[in-house]
């Protein structure tokens, strides 16, 4: 079972890889809309990538209102 820290790091790595942000430039409390510069459809893309990576289903209503990686990680953690 992953720890919350591990889950958070995996999200940061995945976001960095797929949204062309330099590795190491993202932090758990960053606002991912701002930091990644993504719109609503790209947010859905990120959701799909997270679901595929972690092998989970994360309904979009659970991530509505979430904007930082740490909270996103806790939502994912509750589905692992």
């Amino acid at each position, binding site marked *: 079972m992953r720890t919350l820290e591990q889950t958070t790091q995996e999200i940061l790595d995945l976001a960095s890889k797929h949204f062309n942000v330099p590795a190491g430039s993202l932090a758990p409390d960053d606002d991912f*809309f701002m930091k990644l510069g993504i*719109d*609503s*459809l790209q*947010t*859905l*893309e990120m*959701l*799909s*990538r997270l*679901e*595929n990576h972690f092998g989970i*289903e994360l*309904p*979009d*209503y659970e991530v*509505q209102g979430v*904007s930082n990686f740490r909270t996103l990680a806790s939502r994912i953690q509750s589905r692992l």
Partner: protein
Amino acid sequence: MKSFTGKTLRWQWRDGVIELTLDHAPVNEIGSVVLAELEEFITASGALGEETSACIISSARKQGFSAGADLRELYRGASALPEKERLAGLRGFLERIHAVLNALDAAPFVTIAAVHGVCFGGGFELALACDMIIADKMARFAFPELRLGLIPGWGGIPRLKRDLGNAFVRDLLLTGRSVNATRAHAIGLVAQLAAEGEVLRVARATAAQVAKFDGVTRAAAKKFIKPILHEELRREIDLFCELFARPTVMAALKKFVESTDGMPYLP
């Protein structure tokens, strides 16, 4: 007409396969121009029916297959009309889109929706009218209509019920959530999964396989296994119009159109 290039879509017939490509920015929102061109497509594909084994519907837009109905056009059009005319116009549009989707549903050739990215609302209903959905693993499906105080109005519920268990239909409909391609495949909504960027190639390979079989048998098998649910589809139009008449719908449409929310596509 074996090829066509319109303002929002294009098609080409080659070796028994029609490829219909949706290409309307931003994500193939379906409004009056798309509908008119889909009607042209239905007429043309009807004439090509006997020499056609399969039709692939896909999108040239990077972000997905279709984000659904053009809600901005719907809101603008509806706002400009008195209520009585508004409902008459809406019903006319619904009758036309149902005629298109029913014709696609009953086409004598095999129809394949090659889906990537978002496949929401009316876009999902277009895919559901096809015989099979082949999905890129990054595709997502949703019926977000309840956020507007509406139900899917283009045959979505009857067709989803025809294909899947009622529990999943209720989950998708009542929560408005989107599901990924892997989940959609697991529950039988998606026939085949494709790797990222490979959906059209997989759909073409499937179309080539379908073409090997006798056309009369193929059409008979399709008709036998895939009944068109005319009565439920008609009831859906009535219910949609009934719900649309409530002021809450126009208010929700206004909110959507004016939204600056980071995730306006989500309920």
